[in-house]
């Protein structure tokens, strides 16, 4: 009896899953073009923001249907999704690579199949036949580092929080800090440097330990806002760190609020809305024949400071991300 119940349960579950899937899939008419956006990892907050922004932007193009796939931060999965997209004969692929090297052979397959492809956040350099829309991760780190040169005091001790090992954005931003700040300020000492994997809670643990281990910390250099916010969470309200300088990247809503409160110094805005707008415009231009050449586009990496942060906060209030 229990077995029969189990079998019935499984049948119902399968039918339910298939129904959900069918309900989620839009059927394209012959006049519409099918676009797939392969997100690096919808579980990653920035990647999720970009995916959501692309879905919203796609609504402005009634001749396009956009399916969003989740790479789940796995090279293997992203590569499989690329292959599946070729087999499913999408008219255009927008790819947010997890790892440029790992995805290169599969992007080349897309090009060989004659399917237009846009590489976004990041672009993968050196592949012929691709378009791209990106924010330069080196510049994202550099805009903070250049202003920090004059802000961080002499003989300061700084701590550094990095993204996941091998992550292109984290590596490029760190390179920028090395070239634009540490090379120019040999008096500054790195008191601690760890990989916090973009995560706020991991950054908190490192900062808690550094506060104990180091006689002083003058600045936190973080490769993203999430980790910077984690470091701030540890020292907020502590008068010993009233003058702590904190630098991040992304321009998240939380970072905007922290900058306004004076707890964070600067961040560079990685505008997912602008990336989405340019990606969808490019997709539409390619599929409608307006764009015939290969194009690489960069969005700006504006520095967000206390002076201009209110504009960003207002934008987040307008989208409902802040109240």
């Amino acid at each position: 009896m229990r077995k029969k119940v189990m079998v019935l349960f499984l049948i119902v579950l399968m039918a339910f899953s298939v129904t959900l899937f069918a309900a989620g899939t839009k059927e394209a008419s012959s006049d519409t073009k099918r676009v797939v956006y392969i997100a690096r990892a919808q579980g990653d907050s920035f990647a999720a923001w970009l995916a959501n922004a692309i879905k919203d932007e796609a609504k402005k193009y009634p001749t396009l249907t956009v399916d969003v796939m989740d790479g789940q931060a796995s090279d293997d999965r992203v590569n499989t999704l690329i292959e599946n997209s070729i087999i499913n004969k999408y008219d255009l692929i927008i790819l947010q690579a997890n790892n440029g090297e790992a995805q290169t052979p599969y992007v080349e397959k897309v090009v060989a199949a004659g399917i237009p492809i846009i590489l976004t956040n990041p672009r993968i350099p050196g592949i012929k036949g691709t378009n791209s829309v990106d924010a330069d991760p080196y510049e994202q780190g550099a805009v903070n580092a250049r202003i920090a040169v004059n802000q961080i005091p002499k003989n300061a001790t700084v701590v550094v929080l990095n993204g996941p090992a091998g992550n292109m954005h984290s590596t490029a931003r760190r390179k920028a800090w090395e070239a634009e700040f540490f090379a120019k300020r040999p008096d500054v000492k790195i008191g601690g440097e760890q990989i916090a994997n973009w995560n706020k809670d991991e950054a908190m643990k490192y900062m808690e330990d550094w506060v104990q281990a180091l006689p002083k910390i003058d600045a936190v250099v973080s490769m993203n806002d999430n980790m910077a916010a984690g470091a701030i969470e540890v020292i907020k309200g502590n008068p010993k760190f009233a003058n702590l300088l904190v630098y991040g990247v992304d321009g998240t809503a939380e970072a905007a609020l922290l900058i306004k409160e004076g707890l964070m110094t600067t961040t560079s805005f990685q505008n997912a809305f602008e990336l989405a707008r340019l990606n969808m415009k490019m997709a539409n231009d390619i599929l409608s024949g307006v764009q015939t050449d290969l194009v690489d586009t960069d969005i700006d990496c504006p520095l967000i400071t206390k002076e201009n942060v209110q504009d960003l906060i207002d934008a987040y209030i307008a989208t409902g991300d802040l109240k």
Partner: protein
Amino acid sequence: MGSRSKKMPHLGAFFGKYSIYVIMVLLFLISALLNENFLSVANLTNIFRQISVTTILAFGETMLVISGMIDLASGAVLALAGVLSITVYKATGSLLIAFAVGIGVGVLLNMISGILVAYFKTPPFIATLAITMVARGFALLFTKGQNIYQIGKYIIFGQGSFLGIPIPIIFMALMFLLTWYLLRSTRFGRSLYAIGGNEEAAVASGIRVTNVKFIAYLINGVLVGLAGILLMSRVNAGLPNAAAGYEFEALTATIIGGTSFSGGIGTASGTIAGAFIVGFLNNIMNLLGVNSYVQQIVKGVIIALAVVFDIAAKNKRTKPKEIASVLESGSAEKLIDTK
């Protein structure tokens, strides 16, 4: 010869029984010697606070593993419980309701795990793996993958203190006492050991195995929900991606603490000792500025050594008993090589 032979078994028995605590104390002492900041009140408070979430999860894992089960979903369920709890707080302004929702979500998801494992006999590994995907998916779907900010007074659970003691530490202590009491002093606890030791014998002896397993998951759900509330309030945000891998950290503390994957063995005090071992390790390596990659290698090696030492010490304690039982049975000739 008589007094010397009396002392050696006592020392061996001591190490066998308390090996994990010996390791914990040794690690504590070595850490104190390696860095002058280790022993500061602030640093020790940090360690306690940092391990509080995973230790609370570890208590749940301990009860499950003792009875031959496991929960691979605790990280994902923790995240879902946390984001839903925060959402309810932002909507109602009530910390009490938000707290209840967090616990409720943990219990609900674990109820499903319990039904799958206890009533449908699904292997716990598979059942809770499925729940992991469901819970994480819901957390991401509900929040559209975005973090929830501006959580106001919700932070009191993870950042507040009572009589100078951080609230997460108080909760960790309370959950330790609860787990210790359940395992040592209740019929439910004895049933867990019996089921983990020999499920068929447990059935034969009249233990309602299905019910006990189901209740174990419900209790785990309370602990996971609580952990979610504490983590999100500690980080001052609802993070749908949070706690990835926390179940393995909890299991690490559980296993280092002497809980056996084969079931029937484990204690709350062993688990908390295991949690301290991991906490001391993480802390001292950060205080010493050890590189991330090296930290991973060192942690893996020390954890393996700690478990091997613990198992070896337990085996040494068992051997004299085996010999004694053979002698008592009058089969001494079995000990003599007759060839």
